[in-house]
């Protein structure tokens, strides 16, 4: 009897091992076999149904309230923006606006006259006036209201506490006539037209919003004007869209249906794709450990992105610029991008990422950001620091990928004689911790910035003295002056020179290095044969469903 119980124990342990070991075993065969849509011909499939796996539930489909990528991409499918950006050049291309004129601080959009809402009403300039003022209204309290602050009177109206009608009227956007929209800007802001492709600038249908209030985005109420219509939205489960037959350009839209299950877990997303249940992911990210395996598969794609991943210094704690320079030099970015991140990202040599227009002029090729690091130089420099820190607190949020990079950096800084304590925090708490001003325990923190529009100012203005996104405690008046100057400079080349100077203040030989950029983002994604040729993610993380064609077999 006892002997048999012991047998039981052994059997249990053996089976646990077997269970685990069975988890190994060849699995190269399944993926290829499971794929749908072989791609021999270039023939579009008879059924143009595209299945995309969304990585998150969109908190809101109201252009005024949406802040995340999923909402943004769904909105850009449901609505027609003024302009869309060319995926390669990022230049503004006409969409709802046929043409536009820029004259000093005034931008005039000429709208098409054949665009309609799904209920038949024509889309007019008034819709835009109403929508933008609504986004700026203090009642709506839109997170992204600041996107429109380039318009005169916008910031004032948004900050108003009572009796705001007068301020609302003073906002610089007017409908000259039904199809002409005039915008008064606070300064030339040459990027404004490109910025107008952002979902915050989308129009909403006034009567619908007024009738249904917060519920206007429900599928039975919603009124849109874009290439697709919202068929169903089961919260946290799926979003399905169908083609809008009355869209102004419906003839050129191939997809009939877009089915979108919402799968929040990265590993499950990959599994779902490899089981053939979805045609593509939405660029929301792949589990870092799986990248190595997925990169060898034909369905792996990688898109350059306009974003910078950086470690910021709390310049109040690490106040010696030589120390910051040394810490920056000690980081071997190539190891991070090639061995740890492995999604083909570029090592950062400045703040502004490759792909931004004017990059060649703007990039400082900083001596403090050598791609492979320079440990000797770093150690030499570190020796010159008076009172160097022997212990540093490195904070990051607990999303996938950051821990591994932090561990690598921790190891690199160990060679300088610095003991780094890594602290991972949950997102909401992390943001509060960073302030600004950051909690005094913060020595180094990790953040990334994805650009809202393709101009370097979007990233560079983060580090002005008053910016709510400057967590470094660094404040340089010259820098701020340059930022103001750039905002008023209409000539592109001149602006790029100014950007170069800003980068220089931070990263030149005598720069102050308030942060150390690590790499520039990419969007790794999985796409099967049926859609790979026509599906892409733009550097601003936007998906254009009007271009997608499902290839058949």
């Amino acid at each position, binding site marked *: *009897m006892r002997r*048999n119980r012991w*047998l*039981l124990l052994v*059997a*249990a342990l053996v*089976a*646990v091992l077997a*269970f685990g070991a069975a*988890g190994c075993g060849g*699995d190269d065969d*399944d993926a290829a076999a*499971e794929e749908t849509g072989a791609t021999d011909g270039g023939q579009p499939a008879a059924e143009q149904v595209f299945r995309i796996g969304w990585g998150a*539930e969109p*908190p*809101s489909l*109201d252009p005024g*309230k949406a802040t*995340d990528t999923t909402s943004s991409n769904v909105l850009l499918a449901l609505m027609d923006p003024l302009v869309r950006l060319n995926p390669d050049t990022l230049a503004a291309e006409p969409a709802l606006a046929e043409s536009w004129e820029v004259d000093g601080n005034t931008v005039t959009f000429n709208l098409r006259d054949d665009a309609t809402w799904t209920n038949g009403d024509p889309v007019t300039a008034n819709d835009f006036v109403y929508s933008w003022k609504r986004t700026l209204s*203090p*009642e709506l*309290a*839109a*997170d*992204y*209201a*600041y996107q429109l602050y380039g318009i005169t009177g916008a910031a004032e109206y*948004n*900050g108003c*506490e009572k009796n705001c009608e007068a301020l609302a009227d003073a906002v610089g956007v007017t409908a000259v006539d039904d199809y002409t929209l005039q915008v008064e800007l606070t300064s030339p802001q040459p990027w404004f037209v490109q910025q107008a492709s952002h979902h915050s600038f989308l129009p909403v249908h006034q009567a619908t919003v007024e009738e249904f209030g*917060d*519920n206007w*985005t429900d599928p039975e109420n919603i009124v849109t004007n874009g290439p697709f219509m919202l068929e169903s939205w*089961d*919260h*946290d*489960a799926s979003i399905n869209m169908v083609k809008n037959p009355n869209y102004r350009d419906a003839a050129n839209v191939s997809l009939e249906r877009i089915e979108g*299950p*919402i*799968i*929040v*877990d990265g*590993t*499950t997303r990959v*599994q*779902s794709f*490899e*089981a*053939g*249940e979805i045609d593509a992911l939405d660029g929301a990210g792949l589990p870092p450990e799986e990248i190595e395996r997925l990169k060898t598969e034909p369905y792996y794609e990688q898109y350059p992105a306009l974003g910078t991943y950086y470690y910021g210094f709390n310049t109040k704690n690490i106040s010696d610029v030589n120390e910051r320079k040394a810490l920056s030099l000690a980081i071997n970015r190539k190891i991070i991008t090639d061995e740890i991140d492995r999604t083909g990202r570029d090592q950062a040599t400045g703040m502004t990422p490759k792909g931004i227009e004017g990059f060649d002029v703007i990039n400082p090729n900083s001596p403090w950001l050598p791609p492979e690091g320079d440990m000797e130089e770093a150690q030499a420099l570190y020796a010159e620091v008076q009172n160097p820190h022997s212990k540093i607190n490195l904070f990051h949020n607990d999303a996938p990928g950051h821990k591994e990079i932090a561990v690598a950096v921790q190891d690199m800084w160990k060679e300088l004689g610095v003991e780094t304590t890594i602290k991972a925090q949950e*997102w*909401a*708490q992390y*943001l*509060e911790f960073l302030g600004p001003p950051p909690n005094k325990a913060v020595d180094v923190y990790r*953040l*990334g910035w994805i650009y809202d529009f393709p101009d370097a100012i979007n990233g560079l203005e983060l580090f002005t003295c008053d*910016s*709510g*996104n400057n967590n470094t405690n660094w404040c340089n008046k010259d820098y701020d002056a340059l930022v103001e100057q750039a905002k008023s400079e209409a000539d592109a080349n001149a602006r790029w020179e100014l950007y170069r100077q800003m980068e220089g203040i931070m990263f030149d030989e005598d720069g102050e290095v308030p942060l150390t950029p690590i790499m520039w983002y990419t969007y790794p994604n999985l796409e099967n044969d049926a859609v790979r040729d026509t599906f892409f993610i733009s550097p601003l993380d936007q998906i254009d469903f009007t271009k997608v064609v499902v290839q058949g077999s």
Partner: protein
Amino acid sequence: MAAFILRRVIWTIPVILLVILMTFGLMKNIGGNPFRKTDRAVTPQTQANLERKFNLDKPWYQQYALYVKGVFTFDFGPSLAQPGRDVNEYVKEQFPRSIKLGLLAFVWAILLGFPAGVIAALRPNSIVDYSVMFFSNIGFAVPSFLVATLLIYYFAVKIDLVPTSGWPLGFWSLDSRVLLPSFALGLLPMAYFARLVRGSMLETFQQDYVRTARAKGLRYRRIVGLHVLRNSLIPVVTAAGPLLGFLITGSFIIEYIFSIPGIGRGFVSGVQNRDYSVVMALTVLLSLVVIVANLVVDILYGFLDPRTRETGR
């Protein structure tokens, strides 16, 4: 009996109030800004506007009073993190899904666990017994997220028997997507039931009255069916209540991995997003579930085991 039930029901009210207070206190203390979802800072104007809109600028006791009022009028207000969504609607949508998941897991547990335990008890120390004990150990011992991932890998990717994720949304609708998640969730209760039933039956076999029945010459089957099974049910029933409560509330991992839009996941996201309305509503709801489950069990227990009816424990 009626007095007992009434007393317990009345006690529920202060318990709920206490739960609200504790959750409220916890949520207030963890800090974090429910309105800042991305790393982009929220302008002070926007922050002020939002706080005003959601009554967050009022002193804490007023906020607490508002919450309590909301609970008793069943109006939990709008969600903070998901603008435009009403918490009431949200709960009405998501809660039945978690219940369904929990019930299906419970079904697995009973379907597989109960007979397994019975069979094992009837043949103690045999191969059958050891297999049962062995599987029940596995059910306890391996972390659920590992089991779930491997299950998906085998059954959904490799042999493509079922889809990898998703969930049929209508309460009464079922399709193959329910199999893996409910099984994965049901593993632990399954194992637990098997052991419990086995243990309880074995113990009952030792009781004097069973021995008497055998001495009297009653047929084995009759003994088992009439006496042993019924009396072994007692601990099972006792365990079933909190277990059901656990199943409904503790399914976060399974819901997350299988993309099931239920409240387990919703609760954790609510905490992470500092969505106070959602957190408060779900806490109250889940506490009620547990309290009701315990109450039902206590009542059933009173019926099943007359000995406990007499004294108040």
